[in-house]
């Protein structure tokens, strides 16, 4: 469990962080070991050196003390004072059962019992011990000839200071090495991962629809393999997607020739409708109705194949949103007896805050969006109740981000669970039992979503206050409300038709 969570943590960290951490840990371990060895070697060598010096001095002094004690009438304290000791060392002497010392702080009690026992037993000895928090070295020399024992206590405090400084320096060096190791790790992993960044960018571009993206192979033999495998994969993917899109496109184009003949011929028949008997007229109406539907389906399929191939292009115009919606709604209504469009029965309400805003939009695509939404309402929801044009956020001052085009219908609304699926191709869902005559193609709403997405907008379904469904199309305003001058570059691919159009878009 613990190991597993550690593994998870490591994976969460990312390769680069892991390599950096590994370098840091390695550098730390190495520098710590080296510092440790250095420290202990130096310490041992210092101590040995000091101990040897102190012992030599102690033996010299001991023999001096012994000689002095042989001659009678000696002042022991003066004798001890006169002994030439190393700086920081003090002498202690036991003679005739009495203890003498040069320092008040260092006396009989200062010498460890073990040392005392050894020396009093007749053996010279030396020992390190701690006295009042400082490290001391004691050297004891028995002087059997005069029945005395000579001790010299040497403070190692100065040496301890030196060792502390050494330890600090080594610690600092280890720290610096660790940081340097981490830095090297980060640099090296960054360098090693750099080609991956290129491949990541390429993958993102391909996922975004730029199927012709490839990576540079470079010179590195290891990377060459990866790059060529990646490029091969991208090429296969591209070929496959293009083949599928081309197939749909070819099919719809091939269907256009017979459809043209059919359409022209049915048109001729329509012109001679009066000469047909009622049964033939009914048959002609059926033929005409389904021919229209067939044509729409072919158009929709072609449109979809363009989206799938990523070749759908925006041809942007800058327009007044209210006028655009009114015109689009008008274009969806049937042509009356007088050859003019019949005014729709539902209102088109333009919120006051929309006045003066300019929307950059592909008019043809917008017309298709409205036509499909209106078709959807009349096929499945008893028709449109109203169309609203508003801005988001609402208001009349500057700062609108987008234009909302809302189509409300007479239907029962759309259950929450179906709302996203409704924009899928050929999705009929719970409405499948409600096929009206002159049914849609099953592609209408999915095309609405595609057209809206191409504009960088979104479409969603809400509940209308009247109880029906409310389709909300949100189209972004590109330059904060539009002052009448576009930036000259559209939100989508260019149609490449040259100067005039390029500037207008």
């Amino acid at each position, binding site marked *: 469990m613990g190991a597993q969570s550690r593994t998870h943590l490591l994976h969460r960290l990312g390769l680069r962080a892991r390599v950096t951490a590994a370098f840091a840990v390695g550098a730390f371990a190495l520098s710590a070991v080296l510092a440790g060895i250095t420290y202990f070697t130096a310490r041992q060598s210092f101590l040995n050196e000091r101990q040897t010096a102190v012992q030599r001095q102690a033996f010299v002094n001991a023999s001096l003390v012994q000689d002095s004690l042989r001659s009678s009438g000696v002042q022991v304290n003066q004798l001890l004072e006169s002994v030439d000791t190393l700086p920081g060392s003090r002498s202690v002497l036991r003679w005739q059962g009495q203890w003498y010392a040069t320092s008040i702080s260092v006396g009989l009690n200062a010498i460890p019992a073990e040392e005392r026992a050894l020396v009093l037993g007749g053996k010279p000895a030396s020992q390190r011990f701690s006295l009042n928090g400082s490290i001391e070295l004691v050297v004891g020399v028995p002087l059997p000839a005069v029945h005395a024992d000579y001790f010299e206590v040497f403070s190692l405090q100065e040496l301890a200071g030196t060792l502390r400084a050494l330890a600090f320096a080594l610690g600092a060096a280890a720290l610096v090495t660790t940081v340097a190791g981490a830095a090297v790790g980060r640099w090296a992993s960054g360098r090693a991962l750099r080609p991956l960044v290129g491949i990541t960018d390429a993958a993102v571009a391909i996922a975004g629809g730029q199927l012709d993206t490839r990576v540079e192979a470079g010179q590195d033999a290891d990377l060459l393999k990866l790059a060529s495998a990646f490029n091969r994969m991208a090429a296969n993917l591209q070929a496959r997607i293009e083949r599928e899109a081309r197939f749909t496109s070819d099919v719809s*184009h091939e269907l*256009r*020739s*017979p*459809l*043209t*003949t*059919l*359409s*022209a*011929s049915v*048109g*001729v028949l329509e*012109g*001679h409708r009066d000469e047909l008997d009622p049964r033939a007229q009914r048959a002609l109406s059926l033929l005409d109705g389904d021919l229209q539907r067939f*044509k729409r389906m*072919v158009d929709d399929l072609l449109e979809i194949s363009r989206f799938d191939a990523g*070749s759908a*292009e925006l*041809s942007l*115009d*800058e327009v007044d949103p209210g*006028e655009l919606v009114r*015109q*689009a709604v*008008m*274009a969806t209504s049937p042509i009356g007896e007088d050859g003019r469009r019949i005014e729709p029965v539902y209102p088109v309400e333009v919120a006051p805050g929309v006045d003066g805003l*300019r929307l950059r939009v592909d*008019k*043809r695509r917008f*017309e298709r969006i409205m036509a499909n939404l209106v078709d959807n309402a009349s096929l499945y929801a008893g028709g449109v109740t109203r169309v609203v044009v508003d801005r988001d956020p609402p208001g009349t001052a500057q700062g609108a981000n987008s234009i909302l085009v809302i189509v409300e219908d007479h239907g029962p609304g759309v259950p929450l669970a179906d709302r996203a699926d409704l924009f899928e191709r050929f999705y009929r869902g719970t409405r499948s039992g409600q096929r009206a005559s002159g049914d849609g193609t099953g592609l209408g709403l999915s095309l609405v979503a595609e057209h809206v997405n191409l504009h960088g907008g979104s479409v969603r379904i809400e509940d209308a206050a009247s109880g029906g469904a409310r389709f909300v199309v949100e189209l972004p305003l590109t330059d904060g409300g539009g002052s*009448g*001058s*576009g930036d*000259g570059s559209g939100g989508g691919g260019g*149609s*490449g*038709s*040259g*100067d*005039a*159009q390029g*500037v*207008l878009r």
Partner: protein
Amino acid sequence: MSRILVVEDDERIRLSMRLALEDEGYTVDDVASGEDAVAHFADDPSELVLIDLMLPGMDGFETCRALRKQSTVPVIMVTARSDTHDVVAGLEAGADDYVTKPFVAKELAARIRALLRRSRPTETGASVLTFGDVEIEPDAGVVRRGGEEVHCTRTEFRLLCELAVNTGKVLSREQLLERVWGYDYFGDGRLVDVHVRRLRIKVEPDPGNPQFILTVRGMGYKLAV
């Protein structure tokens, strides 16, 4: 009645178009290839030509260019693709308008009527319009540049007249589409763009850097003097 030449390689489409157009009251000649179309037109000029873009041998673009060399006859391209490339290439080859297969016979008839109407003299009220070294006689349908006649198609001529009559005023693409082509709000703005480009080549001293027919960003076009 007006004579229309249909250039279409698919026999069934050709026949159905002939039936539909004859019902609309036109006299229809039909040919199956671009080569035949050029030969037929030289012998017996029609008042309007419908050219399918996808023809075997000499394709629709070439056929249109070949006809343009000898005539300013109105041309409508019939295309199976509404893709930008084909439409723009067709217009640049000299077509006045285009329809997409499968078209409704009534719509095609409406486009033909609008184009034939355009071919008749325009009523601008002025007898001569001038800008720079360009001189337009609306009634005579003549454009001269530096005294020399410039051959314009009727659509180019109508477009130039619209701009010249409204000198200094910005005309949106919708306005130009409605006035010159008879389209509604959702007409294809590319028609205007390509025709403006063609006009610039004919009347501007430096078409790449126009002085007269100017693009007004986000709004449309205007003729400046």
